[in-house]
């Protein structure tokens, strides 16, 4: 993993913003990789792309968790998480879900993850050009 401070800032020359809301956690590995892949692709297309993880989805962002999620096509989810981060996707996680549903502490999550509350999410939804739910 690269030093997060050296990662590229999310590109925005298209002026478009997409917000993806992910609710599924490691219990459904088949549903885990498509959001990261889609986000990585959109970021590569210079769309400002944000993934917001709530309910059990923050568990995907726990340090060491993605490595333990095998994919049917081979490899692990980590490949896709790293790809999204490298392409400049912003990772946000729900403070309430982390605390109340996942039983995690902020320091349990990858250093690239920013924790926000529900009011901030509301702003993000209204600011986005499109919201995708997974």
């Amino acid at each position, binding site marked *: 993993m690269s030093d997060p401070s050296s990662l590229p800032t999310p590109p925005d020359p298209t002026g478009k913003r997409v917000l993806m809301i992910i609710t599924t956690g490691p219990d459904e590995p088949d549903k885990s990789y498509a959001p990261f892949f889609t986000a990585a692709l959109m970021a*590569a*297309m210079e769309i400002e792309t944000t993934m917001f993880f709530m309910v059990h989805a923050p568990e995907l962002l726990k340090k060491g968790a993605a490595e333990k999620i095998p994919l049917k096509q081979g490899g692990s989810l980590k490949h896709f998480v790293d790809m999204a981060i490298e392409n400049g996707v912003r990772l946000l996680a729900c403070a309430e879900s982390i605390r109340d549903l996942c039983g995690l502490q902020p320091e349990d999550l990858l250093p690239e993850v920013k924790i926000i509350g529900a009011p901030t999410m509301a702003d993000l939804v209204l600011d986005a050009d499109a919201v995708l739910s997974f």
Partner: protein
Amino acid sequence: MATIFGCEIPEDRYYYIERSQMTWVKVEDGRVTIGATDPAQARAGRILFLRVKPVGTVRERGRPIATVESGKWAGPIIAPIGGTINEVNTEAEKEPSLLNSDPYGRGWVARMTPSAPEELALLLSGEAALAKFREVIVRDQIHCDRNPP
């Protein structure tokens, strides 16, 4: 042509090897042609989608000039040097697997007129490039195959 673990590396061009990027740059008549290298195409797997920024797009060094998608990778091709795109390989856009089958030939991606040709000095060539390729190919366990799954 050098060969590292089955990956071909022509010695007549410059290379940009950073993060996910392993692109080549060839200087011809004041313009540069840019494409993905043999290890880059092998690591990505069969390329399913290529979209290049339109002719006339001005890009600084480090900004995307194209988007590539394979079954297991999606990402940008970054401008190794700044300039203006003045030719796009529309044949490769229609048939993206050309990046796999002929990465240094028909699978080129774009041609640019450099805005600051001195940026070529920031790229790798010769022994320095080969050493860097060797490091990445070993680290990522890349096995070059011009017809990847």
